[in-house]
C-alpha cells in the first residue's frame, strides 16, 4: 500500500494537471471566439462567389470549350483527397474523425479499383494517414508557423493543386474538413472541389439575368475558377480552425472535470488511510500502557 507521502504527491500532481487543462480550456475559448469571427467574416465573400460562379458556370458547363476545372477530365479514375486537419492534438476526436472519414472514402474507392492520392494540410492528419497510406501521400503542407490564417495560405495550396491537376496527376479532388456547427458539434465534411459542382439555379428564380461581360465570359470564368478553389479552401481552413478550438475547449472541459473527480477520490482515500494510521498508533500506545 502506498504511503501517505506518495498519496500527497499524487494528489498534488493531479491538481497541477487540472490547472493546465483549465488554462488550456480558457485559452481555447478565447481563441475560438476569434476563429469564429474570422469564419463568419469570410462567409459573405464565399456566398457571393458561389452566386456569381453558378450564374456564369451554369451557362458555360454544357459548352465544349468549358475550362477543365469546371468540366473535369472526363474520367474519375484518380482521386485526390485534400485532407485538412489541425496542427496540434489534445482536442478530443477532432483530427481522427476527419481522418476516419477520409480513410473510409478512400477504402471504398480503392475497392472499386480507383486510385487515391492524399494531399495533407496540417501535421496531425499527415501523421495519422502516414500509417496506412504512406505511399499515396503526394504532398503535405504544415501551417504550424502561421499565426493568423490569411487568404495567402489558401492561395498557395490552391496553386499547388491546380499545378498538379494541369499536370494530369488526378481527375477528381475532394476536400475534407470539419464544419463548425457549434462548440459541441463539429461535423467532418467531404466536398468535391474539382471538377466544380455547380448547383442548378432554382427553378422558381425566374429567367437568369442577361449579363454583359467585360471582358469575355470565358475569360472571366477562367480567372474565377482558380480563385473559387482558393476561396473554398480558405473557408475550409477557417471552419477547421474554429472547429479545432471548439473541440479542444470541450475536450479540456471534460479533462478538468475528470481531474476534479480524481482529486476528490484520492483525497478521500488519503484521509481514510491517515485516520486508520492514527487509530492504529493510539491502539499501540494504549495497549502498551495497559501492559505496564
Amino acid at each position: 500500500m502506498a504511503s501517505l507521502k506518495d498519496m500527497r504527491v499524487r494528489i498534488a500532481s493531479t491538481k497541477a494537471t487540472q490547472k493546465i487543462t483549465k488554462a488550456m480550456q480558457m485559452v481555447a475559448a478565447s481563441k475560438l471566439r476569434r476563429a469564429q469571427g474570422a469564419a463568419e467574416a469570410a462567409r459573405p465573400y464565399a456566398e457571393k462567389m458561389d452566386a456569381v460562379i453558378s450564374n456564369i458556370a451554369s451557362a458555360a458547363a454544357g459548352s465544349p470549350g468549358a475550362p477543365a476545372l469546371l468540366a473535369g477530365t472526363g474520367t474519375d479514375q484518380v482521386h485526390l483527397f485534400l485532407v485538412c486537419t489541425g496542427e496540434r492534438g489534445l482536442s478530443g476526436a477532432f483530427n481522427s474523425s476527419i481522418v476516419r472519414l477520409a480513410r473510409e472514402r478512400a477504402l471504398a474507392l480503392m475497392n472499386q479499383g480507383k486510385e487515391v492520392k492524399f494531399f495533407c494540410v496540417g501535421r496531425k492528419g499527415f501523421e495519422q494517414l502516414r500509417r496506412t497510406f504512406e505511399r499515396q501521400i503526394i504532398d503535405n503542407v504544415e501551417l504550424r508557423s502561421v499565426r493568423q490564417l490569411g487568404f495567402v495560405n489558401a492561395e498557395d495550396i490552391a496553386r499547388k493543386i491546380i499545378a498538379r491537376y494541369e499536370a494530369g496527376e488526378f481527375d477528381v479532388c475532394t476536400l475534407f474538413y470539419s464544419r463548425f456547427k457549434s462548440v459541441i458539434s463539429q461535423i467532418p465534411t467531404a466536398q468535391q472541389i474539382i471538377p466544380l459542382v455547380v448547383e442548378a439555379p432554382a427553378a422558381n428564380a425566374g429567367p437568369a439575368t442577361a449579363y454583359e461581360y467585360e471582358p469575355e465570359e470565358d475569360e472571366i470564368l477562367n480567372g474565377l475558377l482558380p480563385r473559387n478553389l482558393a476561396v473554398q479552401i480558405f473557408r475550409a481552413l477557417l471552419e477547421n480552425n474554429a472547429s479545432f478550438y471548439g473541440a479542444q475547449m470541450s475536450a479540456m472541459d471534460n479533462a478538468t472535470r475528470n481531474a476534479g473527480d480524481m482529486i476528490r477520490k484520492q483525497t478521500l482515500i488519503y484521509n481514510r488511510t491517515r485516520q486508520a494510521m492514527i487509530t492504529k498508533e493510539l491502539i499501540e500506545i494504549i495497549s502498551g500502557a495497559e501492559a505496564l
Partner: protein
Amino acid sequence: MATFHFDLVSPEQLAFSGEVEQVDVPGIEGDFGVLAGHAPVVAAIRPGILTVTAGGTQQKIIVLGGLAEVSEKGLTVLADVATSIQDLDRAQFADAISAMEEKLAEHEGSELDRAIERLDHFKSIQHQLSATAMH
C-alpha cells in the same frame, strides 16, 4: 438622388455594405461609374482605386483586382484585397512595389507581360495617392 445597394467583400471581411449613390469601379477594360438602375454587368477589375459616393461624401477604397457584378439587386464587388485609403500603410505599399520590380526578372513570356501590367497598376495607384496627398 436615387440610391442602390453596394457590397464590397474581400475573402477576409465584409469591407463595405450599404446604400450608395454612385460607385466608380476600375474595370480591366476601363473605369466605369455605376448609378442606380445600371444594366446587369459582370466585369473583372484591375488593381486601382474605387470611389464610393454616398450622402454627398466620397470614400476611396483601394482594391487589388477582383470582380464586379451589377444586377437588379445592386452592385457587388468581390475584391482580392480591399483597403480604405486612410488605413493603407504607404511604406508597406512602396515595399510591395519594389519587391515586384525585383521579381520582374524571374518572369518570362506572357507571365512577364502580366507582371509588368500589374506593376503599372500598382504604380498608378501610388501616383494617385501622392497626388491626393498634396491637395
